[in-house]
C-alpha cells in the first residue's frame, strides 16, 4: 500500500525533525524527493542517509525571490513536482500585548505566505498532469489557540483556510489539498521544554505521551498516496486525542 514509485516530492523544512521524517517516509514509499530547508548541512546529511532519488534544494523561505524560484529548481532537478509538503515553520512567541509587527510578519511570511507561493508555483505542472498532492503542515494550536502564539496560531489556521479554498478550485483536476495538524511531537523544539512543562502538557493528552515525528510522516504519506485521491480539503489531526476535532 501507498506506493509512490515514479512520483516526485518537494518537502520544505526537511532539516527539522518532522520534515526529515516526512522525507524519509515519502522516499521509503518510492518517491524521488527534493529536500528544502535553510540550513544545508542537515539536508546533505539526510540526503546521504537516503541515498538515491534525493536532491538538496536549500531555500530561505523569508526571501520571496528564493521562494518563487524553488518550484522551478525542484522541477528541474526531478522532472516535476507531484507532491508538495509545506512543512517549514518558525515560531517567534510573545504575549500578544508585546508582540511586534516584525514578530507577526516574519511568522506569517514563512509559515503562510511561502506555502501560498510554493503551492502556486507547483500548480501549473500538477494541472497539466491531472495529478497532484499538496499537504500543508498546520498545528493543533491553529484550532485551539495558545497563549504567546497569536502569530503562529494565525499562520497555522490560515493554512487550513487556504487548503480548503484551493482544494475546491483544483479538485476537478485530480489535485488534492489537505492539512495535517500535529499536537505535541518529540522534536528539537519540544526538547527545550523542561520536565515540569512536559508533564503539564501531557496531562492534556489522553494518549499520555508525546507523538513521534514518524507518526506525522505516516499521516502525510497517506494524504500523498494515490489511495487518498478522494480525500481533499480536510485536516488530519494527529495529537493523541489532545483536541478531538
Amino acid at each position: 500500500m501507498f506506493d509512490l514509485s515514479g512520483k516526485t516530492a518537494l518537502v520544505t523544512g526537511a532539516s527539522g525533525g518532522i520534515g526529515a521524517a516526512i522525507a524519509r517516509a515519502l522516499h521509503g514509499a518510492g518517491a524521488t524527493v527534493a529536500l528544502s530547508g535553510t540550513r544545508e548541512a542537515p539536508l546533505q546529511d539526510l540526503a546521504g542517509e537516503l541515498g538515491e532519488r534525493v536532491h538538496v534544494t536549500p531555500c530561505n523561505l523569508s526571501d520571496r525571490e528564493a521562494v518563487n524560484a524553488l518550484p522551478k529548481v525542484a522541477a528541474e532537478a526531478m522532472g516535476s513536482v507531484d507532491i508538495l509538503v509545506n512543512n517549514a515553520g518558525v515560531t517567534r512567541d510573545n504575549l500578544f500585548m508585546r508582540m511586534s509587527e516584525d514578530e507577526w510578519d516574519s511568522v506569517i511570511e514563512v509559515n503562510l505566505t511561502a506555502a501560498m507561493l510554493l503551492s502556486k508555483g507547483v500548480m501549473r505542472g500538477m494541472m497539466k498532469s491531472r495529478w497532484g498532492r499538496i499537504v500543508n503542515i498546520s498545528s493543533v494550536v491553529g484550532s485551539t489557540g495558545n497563549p504567546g502564539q497569536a502569530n503562529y496560531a494565525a499562520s497555522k489556521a490560515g493554512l487550513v483556510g487556504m487548503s480548503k479554498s484551493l482544494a475546491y478550485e483544483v479538485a476537478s483536476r485530480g489535485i488534492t489539498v489537505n492539512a495535517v495538524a500535529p499536537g505535541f511531537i518529540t522534536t528539537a523544539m519540544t526538547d527545550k521544554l523542561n520536565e515540569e512543562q512536559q508533564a503539564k502538557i501531557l496531562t492534556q493528552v489522553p494518549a499520555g505521551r508525546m507523538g513521534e515525528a514518524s507518526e506525522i510522516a505516516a499521516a502525510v504519506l497517506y494524504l500523498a498516496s494515490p489511495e487518498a485521491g478522494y480525500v481533499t480539503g480536510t485536516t488530519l489531526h494527529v495529537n493523541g486525542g489532545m483536541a478531538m476535532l
Partner: protein
Amino acid sequence: MSDIQDRTRKIVVEHLGVEEDKVTENASFIDDLGADSLDTVELVMAFEEEFGIEIPDDAAETIQTFGDAVKFIKEAV
C-alpha cells in the same frame, strides 16, 4: 497570421471539447464555449506553451473571447 488563428482554435477545441465552428471571433470562452474559470487559466497556460510566450495574470484577465486570445497572441509572438 491565419496560422496563429488555426493553432489557437485547435487548442480551444481540444481543451474545451467544442465543435470547431463554434469557436468564432466573438465566442466567449465562459459564456459561449462552456469554460469555467479554471479552464480559462488552463487555456492561457496552453497558449503560452504553444507559442512560447508569457501572458501575465493581468493580461490573461482581459482575454475573454477567442478573438481576444488571437489578438493578444499575434501581438506577443
